[in-house]
C-alpha cells in the first residue's frame, strides 16, 4: 500500500553532484522511522517511471540537481508552476526525461497529487565520479534540515 506522501530523490550517483537527490534519500532513509507516513524513494534516472511513483499520493516532494542560475550549493524550494523548463530537448526522450513534462502528463491523466514541491540543488560538478563536490557535500546537513522542515508540515488531507 502506497503511503500518502512520497519523497523522491532523482539523479545519478555516478555523476558527482547529479546524484545529490539519491544521496539525500540515503540520509533520509536512515531516519525513516520518524516518518511512518512517508515513502522515501531513490528513483535514480528512472525517467517515466516517476509517473507511477507519484500517483495516488496527497503530496510529493522531489529532490533533484537543478540548473537554476544560482550559486553552486544553493537549495531552492519551488512548485512546478514557479518554473519553466529550458531543457534543450523539446520533447521527452526516455532517458533525458523532463520531470516537469512527466508532471504535465500526470495532470492530463488526472493522476496528479494534490501538492507537488520541488527542492532544486544547484550543482558545482557534473562529471564521471562517485563523490559529491566539496561545496555540495559540506551542505548535506543543511539540505537535510531544510527538507526535514517540509516533512514536518502536515499534508493538507
Amino acid at each position: 500500500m502506497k503511503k500518502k506522501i512520497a519523497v523522491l530523490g532523482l539523479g545519478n550517483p555516478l555523476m558527482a553532484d547529479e546524484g545529490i537527490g539519491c544521496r539525500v534519500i540515503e540520509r533520509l532513509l536512515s531516519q525513516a522511522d520518524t516518518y511512518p507516513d512517508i515513502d522515501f524513494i531513490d528513483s535514480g534516472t528512472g525517467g517515466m517511471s516517476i509517473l507511477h511513483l507519484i500517483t495516488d499520493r496527497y503530496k510529493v516532494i522531489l529532490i533533484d540537481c537543478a540548473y537554476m542560475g544560482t550559486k553552486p550549493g544553493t537549495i531552492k524550494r519551488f512548485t512546478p508552476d514557479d518554473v519553466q523548463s529550458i531543457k534543450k530537448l523539446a520533447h521527452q526522450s526516455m532517458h533525458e526525461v523532463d520531470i516537469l513534462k512527466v508532471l504535465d502528463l500526470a495532470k492530463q491523466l488526472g493522476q496528479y497529487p494534490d501538492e507537488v514541491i520541488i527542492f532544486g540543488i544547484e550543482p558545482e560538478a557534473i562529471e564521471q565520479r562517485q563523490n559529491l563536490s566539496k561545496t555540495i557535500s559540506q551542505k548535506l546537513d543543511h539540505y537535510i534540515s531544510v527538507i526535514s522542515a517540509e516533512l514536518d508540515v502536515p499534508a493538507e488531507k
Partner: protein
Amino acid sequence: MSKNMNIDVKHVTRIEGHANIVVNARDGKIEKVQWQVPEAPRFFEAMVRGRSYEDIQLIVSRICGICSISHSLVATKAVENALGLEVTEQTDLIRLLMHYSEQLQSHILHIGYLAAPDFFGVPSVVPLVPKATDAVKTIIKAHRVANDWSDLIGGRTTHPVTLKPGGMTAIPSEKQLRELQATLKNTLADLETIAKVVLSVAGNVPQFERPTEYVSLKQTNPPTYTFYHGDITSTDCNGKTVLVKDWHKVANEYVVEQSTAKWTKWHRDSYAVGALARFNNNAELLSDGAKKTAKAFGLNKGCCNPYMNTIVQLAESVHVVQSSIAIIDKLLTKGVKQEKVTVKVKAGKGAAAIEAPRGILFYEYEFDKKGNCVAADICIPTNQNHANIQKDFEKLVPEILDQNEATIRLKLEMLVRAYDPCVSCSTHMLDVKFIR
C-alpha cells in the same frame, strides 16, 4: 528530384541521450548523410576497477535508467563466471522473471511513449492524451504493471538491489508471486488492446528494407526464444553459434570520425541487434500469443525493415508475459525459499551476455585473488547498432530524396527511434528558469 537540402537535427528527440542527424544535398545530389554520436563513451569500465566483486552490479545498475536490470544481471553473471559460481534453478528463474519485467517496461515505454506519437503524427505523448485517451491510459496501465513487477523482484523499480553474486538477497513470497501471476493474466488483454491500436495506425510505419546481418543470443537446450541464456548467433551463421566468452570475435569494434562511440561489425560492414534481431534468429520459438501478434502485422522471419523493430517489441511483450506466467507456475509447484549463498573468492576472468531490451549486451570482468576488479570491458547494444543506422541512412536517403524536407527529417528520426538507441544514459537533471 529534390533540390538543395540541409537537414541538421541536433539531439534527436525522444531517444535516450544525444545524437545528431546530418543530411546535405545540392542540386539533388547527396553530399553528406551522417548519423553522429558526439556523446562521451564508456567511463563505467574505469569506475568498477578496484571495486569488490560484491559491489559491481550495484554500480553498473546506474549506467542506464531504462536498462538498469539488464546491466545488473549481466554484470552479476559475468562476476559469477569469473569466480566460477553456479546458481540454483530457483535463482535462475527469479532472475529471469526480473529480466522479463524490464523487457515489458522498456518495450511498452518505447511503443507507447516514443513510437506511438510518430504513428499518430504528434510530437510527444503529452498531446497524444486528448487524441487517444483510452489508448494512452492502457499503455500507462501496462507500464505500471511492469514497473511494479520490477519493484517486486528487484526491490526497486529501477536500479535493482536484490541481486548478489551466487544468488539473491531477497525473493518474492509465494503469495506475491500468485498475485503477480493474476495481474499478468489481465495484462495480456491490455496488450491485445495496445496491439489493436498500433495496428490501426500501422499504415504509418515506413516501408523500407535493407538486407542486414542480425545478431542475438540463441538457446538450443531447451530451444527457447532467449533473452538470458545461450550463445551468440547471427542471420549470417546458418544456425551456428559462437561461445559468449568469444564475444570479441563478434563485436569487432572500430573507430570512426563522426562518432565518439565505437562502431562494430562482424560478417558485413555493420550488424543490427535488438528485438528484430532476436526475432529474425528465433521467431519460431515465440509464445503462441506473440506469434499471433506478429502475424496480425504481417511480420515474418527475415524481415529487414528496421522500422518493424517496434512491432517485434509488441510481440515480445506478449511473449515475456506469457513466459512469466509459466515461470511462476514452475516456481509455485516447487515452492520458493530463501537460499543461502556461500562464495569462495578467487582470481579469475569471465564474460557474460544478455539480451537487453535494445539488444545483446556483453560484459567481461577480471578479478584478483581478493575479488577486486582489475579489468572491465563492456559492449552495449546501442554501440553495436550505430554503424547499421548509418548504413540504413545511406540507403534510405536516396530513396526518399524527392520527398519534402520535413518528411525526410521525420523518417530519419523515426528510423533512429526504431532502434531506440540509449546514447548518453547518465544524467537526468532539471534545467529551469523561474517565472514567478
